[in-house]
């Protein structure tokens, strides 16, 4: 379906927070005024030079930006196709792109006079990034994490605790990221007076999808500048993994107007999208309403959200940011599945070929990027977002492969 909203990729969201038919503000009445206050505060800081300067300074001096754009020459040669460049978000402070957003929202929390930060986390990267910002700003921090994920991501749980955060294991529902989000919403509705909810991805009620995107577009702006410096031209394709979709939209957004740049969002296909065990709502789900916005979901015929399966906790989410849903319907970006097995293979290949241990989330993007590169000529260029580093995943991988550490 090509809607007329697709004429201008920079026109969304509209003033009501809609991306075409997606997005919006589907929250309980108690939260409507707080999200309106948040929207107004965010609109103010968007054009506030002092705020933007503080954000840029933190990205440079604290996060370590710009992150390099690295030509993975050896891997590209081995694949024998397009030249692959990796956007090294794994080299950011705390090891992933998540910190770009938590720095922004942390500064906004301070600007709004909030004293307490809450966050949900799946893989733990967003939880760590939130706890880091809270420690630095001297704020209380509570992180909700599904009980299953607490087990899968023990090193990150410990990291958050070291940073002074309280990690609350969530035992309701499927005990993963979606349930952590539910629990964080429940905390927020109870403590709205003093609490700022840092959502980690481009989902949730308006203004979160737009705000988180804006904080993450530093990835794409840098990548554009860097590839023009290194290769003298724009890339032919962009590849990024999509759970909620924040690293993908961060890379894609500054290129949306460049019609010749193709975009591929890679979803976690688990055991395969022809099985019930996956986390690929854009590839194999249908539209619905969850967590404050209308988007593609993993749901059954009765509108119940179904449990997702993906080896990577950060992709193990039944929804996706509404802007991706809209870009899919517009045909501007393509969304493709990568199985656990393919992602694990790409994890090892990159580690052995380039000496970079990627996060399991990012390994999905790498796996698809490799497939794509093989179909393209050697003078073509692909940028893959290496959204996080894989240190947090070594226990998971060792366990899958039957290795005792």
């Amino acid at each position, binding site marked *: 379906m090509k809607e007329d909203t697709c004429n201008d990729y920079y026109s969304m969201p509209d003033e009501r927070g809609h991306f075409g038919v997606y997005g919006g503000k*589907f929250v*309980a*009445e*108690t939260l409507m005024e707080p999200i309106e206050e948040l929207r107004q505060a965010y609109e103010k800081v968007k054009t506030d030079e002092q705020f933007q300067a503080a954000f840029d300074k933190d990205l440079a001096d604290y996060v370590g930006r710009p992150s390099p754009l690295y030509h993975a020459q050896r891997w590209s040669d081995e694949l024998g196709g397009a030249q692959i460049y990796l956007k090294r978000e794994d080299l950011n402070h705390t090891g992933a792109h998540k910190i770009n957003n938590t720095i922004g929202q942390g500064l906004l929390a301070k600007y709004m006079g909030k004293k307490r930060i809450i966050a949900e986390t799946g893989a733990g990267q967003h939880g760590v990034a939130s706890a880091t910002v809270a420690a630095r700003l001297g704020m209380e921090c509570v992180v909700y994490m599904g009980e299953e994920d607490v087990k899968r991501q023990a090193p990150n749980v410990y990291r958050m605790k070291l940073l002074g955060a309280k990690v609350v294991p969530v035992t309701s529902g499927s005990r993963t990221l979606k349930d952590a989000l539910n629990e964080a*919403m429940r905390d927020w509705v109870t*403590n709205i007076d003093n609490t700022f909810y840092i959502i980690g991805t481009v989902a949730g009620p308006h203004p979160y999808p737009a705000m988180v995107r804006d904080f993450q577009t530093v990835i794409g702006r840098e990548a554009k500048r860097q590839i023009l410096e290194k290769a003298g031209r724009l890339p032919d394709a962009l590849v990024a993994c999509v759970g909620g979709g924040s690293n993908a939209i961060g890379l894609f957004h500054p290129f949306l107007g460049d019609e010749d740049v193709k975009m591929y969002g890679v979803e976690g296909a688990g055991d395969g999208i022809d099985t019930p065990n996956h986390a690929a709502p854009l590839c194999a789900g249908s539209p619905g309403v969850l967590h*404050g916005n*209308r988007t593609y979901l993993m749901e059954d015929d*009765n509108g119940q*959200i179904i449990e997702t399966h993906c080896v990577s906790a950060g992709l193990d989410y039944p929804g996706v940011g509404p802007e991706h849903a809209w870009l899919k319907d517009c045909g501007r970006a393509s969304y493709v599945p990568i199985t656990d097995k393919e992602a694990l293979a790409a994890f090892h290949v990159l580690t052995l070929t380039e000496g970079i241990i990627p996060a399991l989330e990012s390994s999905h993007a790498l796996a698809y990027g490799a497939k794509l590169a093989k179909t393209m000529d050697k003078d073509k260029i692909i940028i893959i977002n290496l959204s996080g580093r894989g240190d947090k995943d070594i226990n998971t991988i060792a366990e899958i492969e039957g290795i005792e550490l």
Partner: protein
Amino acid sequence: MSRLQASFETLKSANKTALIPYITAGDPHPSVTVNLMHDMVQAGASILELGIPFSDPMAEGPVIQLACERALKHNVSLTDVLGMVKEFRSKDNDTPIVLMGYTNPVEVMGYEKFAKAAASSGVDGLILVDLPPEEGADLISALNVNKIDMIFLLAPTSTDERMQLICDQASGFVYYVSLKGVTGSANLDVASVVKKVEQIRGHTSIPVGVGFGIRDAESAAQVASVADAVVVGSALVNRIAENADNPEEMSKQVCALLSSMREAMDK
């Protein structure tokens, strides 16, 4: 006149406040729900609020979350819930029934299909916790065609501006969420409820119900002194959970609490 309107008028002429129990449809088993609905009417319920089970009930405390999980173990769908209403209607054509749930099951069924099916089953009103009026236009028009009331929530954080916006679109009654928090929370502040209900009445002449945090006869009576309807949920659902294996005892416990509330409210 709609069942809801008739019910509120009858109560008003008797100088009484409506008592609205909430239970989750299909909790703990689909076979108990309709009987329990009839028993609750016997025990003094004026209007019944029937929860549509949902996998991600974001506004609920642990008690109603677990009720949803118990119902979903039996795959209770929105279609099943409408079936229960229809079955109830074969013996009771007067007591209004309001469905309460989340947007997605209704969205997936389709607004028009839902509105038609709900009307023919005998549903009188709908509360969708995560559907503010800003997002509700299409559903409201489908419900209007089928003479079902869309009942909106108001909250302690609602400004006068929002109260007006919501009251302009509400029908049946408006539902004031008495505290900042999830269902079953403990911090009910009666004085602030009194103040807010007065403020709401400045925006609408339709009945004002109050819910969240009402757990016993005393709190029910306090709220009844200012509201047109008192909603009780988690306190009842707790009794359902405690007696999940014994439907007879479950009904007895649920009805005992309702009767004590009814009595205290009528004093």
